[in-house]
């Protein structure tokens, strides 16, 4: 045994093990993928190197990794096991996978505004998105449903007046410019849209003689809010040649709006906490960075503001210089300012115009340039459409499960797992009446169970995955039965040959099991993917690691004491 620890191969395993265990502990987000990687690495190594002790060491290391992952990161459960609410969003029509990931981002953003960071958002096929929150409080749920079904409001603001609003735009007319049109207007990207008569007349009036003014494109601009920025927030992406004063002036220009909808800006460093600017009423929001000192936040709350916090990336304004060297605000996500194209002189004559286009250029060349241009087109399209989800939300068709019931389901399910393990152990013991064959089977089954739980628990264990885990215990034992039956058979064949025969059968079985389940894995039928994953992982784990390890143990104890090579 001693020479094993100085064996080079064993040392390679140790190095991999140390790298993987630190990965699992320090990057919990990737722990599931790292475990799958460990399974593959140790699996391939133990298939390459014939030494049975290496095979056993591979399985043992994987088991330790799995246990470490459970200890360090815990297991994640779906709402079936921890309680909570699932709200399905049904899309109007199937969407492409690109569009789907975009939608998921929008939904995530909307839900995270509520401070519900534990919310899970995932696609179900290409027509549905499920939002899961670990809360069954009726008030919270109603609020989420409201936020999700809410249609965004687009405003194009010119010189402190709404020049164009989303409700005057024909949503079906919002389309990218063709490459010919782009060449004509000498732009890299562009979006065109049409407005109705009301929109055309309003734009003509507001935009008259405002050539080269920025059109501040707002989505859901707050109507009753005050912006509190730190000097660092302003400085973050201010061009080097600009002063703070100039930045404040351009901010004031962007935030100006008639009918008392103006948003004032204050610098947090200059605030006198004992006499803060008064809020308009008790619904006035104070928009502030989440890095702001707690003393400032509580002072604002005390003077009657509703404090809403945003990450630095969303509250730091970004700036542009126009051709006439004026500094303008290009983007300030916290208040919904998403873009600020300039008004071209042709549109400022005061004559109603029904068709508009927004164009721009991007630096760079080749594929990068194309991608950047496409991203801009998508962004502008989504702003004009009101950032709306092309969806209808089926309110009411949701699942709410109290935490106590979920925990009860989990407890019973774990009892089920243990019970099936015990029953199978008894059966194997009864069948072989041979402790030396039975105990390894049971030990390996327990290790498989722990490894599977740990991998699936890094993602989410839902009902389907739990059912798959129980199934994997039953089916996983099968291959070990094939090996045992071959080994116990009295023939002149050597142990080695017997194991080879057994493995030929097992290999085909694993391939078949995987082949029949893999199409399910790629089907997008999320409800039952957990089942497919646990079945496939179970086969893979068995084939690459636990069955070779089992053959090694059993070869030693059943065979003539000779380890199987």
């Amino acid at each position, binding site marked *: 045994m001693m020479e094993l620890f100085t064996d080079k191969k064993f040392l390679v395993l140790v190095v991999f093990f140390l790298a993987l265990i630190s990965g699992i502990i320090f990057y919990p987000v990737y722990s599931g993928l790292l475990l799958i990687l460990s399974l593959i690495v140790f699996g391939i190594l133990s298939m390459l190197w014939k030494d049975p002790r290496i095979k056993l060491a591979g399985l043992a290391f994987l088991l330790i990794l799995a246990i470490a992952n459970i200890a360090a990161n815990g297991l994640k459960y779906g709402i079936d096991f921890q309680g909570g609410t699932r709200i*399905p969003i*049904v899309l109007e029509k199937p969407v492409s996978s690109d569009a789907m990931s975009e939608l998921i981002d929008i939904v995530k953003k909307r839900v995270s505004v509520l401070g519900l960071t534990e919310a899970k958002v995932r696609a179900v*096929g*290409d027509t*549905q998105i499920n939002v899961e929150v670990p809360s*069954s409080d009726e008030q919270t749920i109603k609020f989420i449903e409201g936020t999700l079904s809410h249609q965004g409001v687009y405003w194009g603001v010119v010189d402190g007046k709404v020049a164009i609003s989303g409700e*005057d735009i*024909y949503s*079906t*007319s919002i389309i990218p410019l063709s490459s010919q049109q782009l060449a004509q207007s000498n732009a890299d990207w562009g979006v065109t849209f*049409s407005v*109705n*008569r009301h929109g*055309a007349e309003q734009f003509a009036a507001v935009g008259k003689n405002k050539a080269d003014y920025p059109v501040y494109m707002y989505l859901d601009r707050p109507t009753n809010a005050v912006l509190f920025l730190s000097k660092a927030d302003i400085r973050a992406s201010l061009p080097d040649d600009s002063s703070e004063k100039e930045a404040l002036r351009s901010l004031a220009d962007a935030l100006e709006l008639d009918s008392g909808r103006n948003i004032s800006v204050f610098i947090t460093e200059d605030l006198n906490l004992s006499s803060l600017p008064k809020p308009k009423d008790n619904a006035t929001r104070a928009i502030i960075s989440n890095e702001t000192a707690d003393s400032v936040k509580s002072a604002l709350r005390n003077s009657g503001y509703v404090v809403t916090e945003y990450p630095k990336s969303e509250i730091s304004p970004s700036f542009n210089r126009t051709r006439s060297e004026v500094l303008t605000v290009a983007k300030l996500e916290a208040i919904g300012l998403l873009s600020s194209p300039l008004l071209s002189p042709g549109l400022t004559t005061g004559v109603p115009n*029904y*068709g508009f286009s927004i164009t721009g250029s991007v630096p760079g060349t080749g594929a990068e340039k194309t991608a950047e241009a496409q991203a801009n087109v998508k962004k502008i399209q989504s702003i004009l459409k009101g950032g709306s989800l092309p969806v*209808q939300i*089926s*309110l*009411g*068709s*949701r*699942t709410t499960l*109290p935490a106590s019931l979920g925990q*009860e*389901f989990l407890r*019973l399910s774990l009892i*089920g797992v243990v019970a*099936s393990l015990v*029953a*199978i152990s008894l059966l194997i013991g009864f*069948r072989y009446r041979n402790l030396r064959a039975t105990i390894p089977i049971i030990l390996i089954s327990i290790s498989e169970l722990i490894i599977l739980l740990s991998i699936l628990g890094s993602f989410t264990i839902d009902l*389907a995955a*739990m*059912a798959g885990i*129980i*199934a994997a*215990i*039953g*089916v996983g034992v*099968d291959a070990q039965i*094939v090996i045992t*039956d071959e080994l116990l058979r009295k023939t002149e064949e050597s142990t080695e040959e017997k194991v080879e*025969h057994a493995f*030929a*059968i097992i290999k*085909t*079985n694993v391939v*078949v*099991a995987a*082949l*029949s*389940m*893999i*199409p*399910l894995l790629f*089907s997008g*039928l999320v409800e039952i993917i957990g089942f*497919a994953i646990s*079945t496939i992982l179970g086969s893979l784990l068995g084939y690459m690691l636990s069955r070779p390890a089992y053959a090694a143990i059993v070869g030693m104890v059943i065979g003539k004491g000779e380890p199987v090579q």
Partner: protein
Amino acid sequence: MDFPNIFKGNYKLLAIPPLVLILISIYFIPQIKMGVDFQGGTLVTLNLKGAADAEKLKADLAGEGLDAGVRVYQTTTGYKAEIEVPQSQKLVEADNLKSEFNNLLPDVSLLEVVSMQNSSQMNEYLAKRAELEAVSDRMFSLAGVSRKDFNITGAIEEQKSFSNAYLKIYGDYQSSISKPIEKHISYSSISIQTVSPLLSSQFISKAINVVIFSAVLSIAFVFIFFRTFVPSLAVLTGSISDVVIALGAMGIFGIPFTLPSFAALLMLIGFSLDTDILLTMRMLRRKGDPREKAHWAMKTGLTMSVTAIVAFSALFILALLTHIPTYYEISAVALAGLVGDIFATWGINAVLLLWYVERVGA
């Protein structure tokens, strides 16, 4: 643990029980109940605060105009009720109107813009607009609203009113389900699962794709692996028989066809191929008397089947205790298929193979 070699004597008789099972199954397959996933409709699952009577609940809900199937179970976690409401015809129709409307809308919008600047296109616009209005009027009447309720001047408002009407139909359908439930049942948790006509048709087409892919992959693998026609055919016959028996059991025992039971059926393909391959490998690639080899394979194969049956029995008992539908559907289908597999493998596949080996030689 030894049992007699059933392949001694006239083994062909062994095919009788599985063939009988398959015939019974084929008779019962049409009776399989489609679950909400594939049929559309709404399934409400409630954990009740107290005992309840299914018949009374059904009558109460019917009194509120809700025609629904009601089942009540007693589980270890209390009473549980399942209320199944079929797909609403109105909803299906609204979905169709919506896609009709969405097809017309871009043209109408375009013509509206053009006609505002150029009156020569006005007639064409008005004709298209009338077509669109006809579709939305049908939606309005479905929703029980009238065009006068909205202030419609152009295509933009037309679209807004149209979606409002659509949402009203959806909302009405949902409150027609939730109101009577709120009124008559006190519950501690609720799950309302509505599968729209669109989603259910998607589930169906995806499931069909998965089945085709799985079948093609498995069949291709078996043929490539064995490279002989009769044994490959025998393996596939055994596997297909197993799935047929599992489907028959779903019809007999009323296990609904849902996504979880579909997943279990797929797993059965893999499992039944397992025992079939074990048998075929031992018959074709090992030396010795064919009937002895078949018997030996059967000993191993039965142990495999029984352990799998034990695991799924644990899941099945868990399902009976908790009445979690996912557990029930997976375990019941798997158990039926595993039992069916014993008949299919040793009654059909083994008989075909023995006949082949003794006639043709391995």
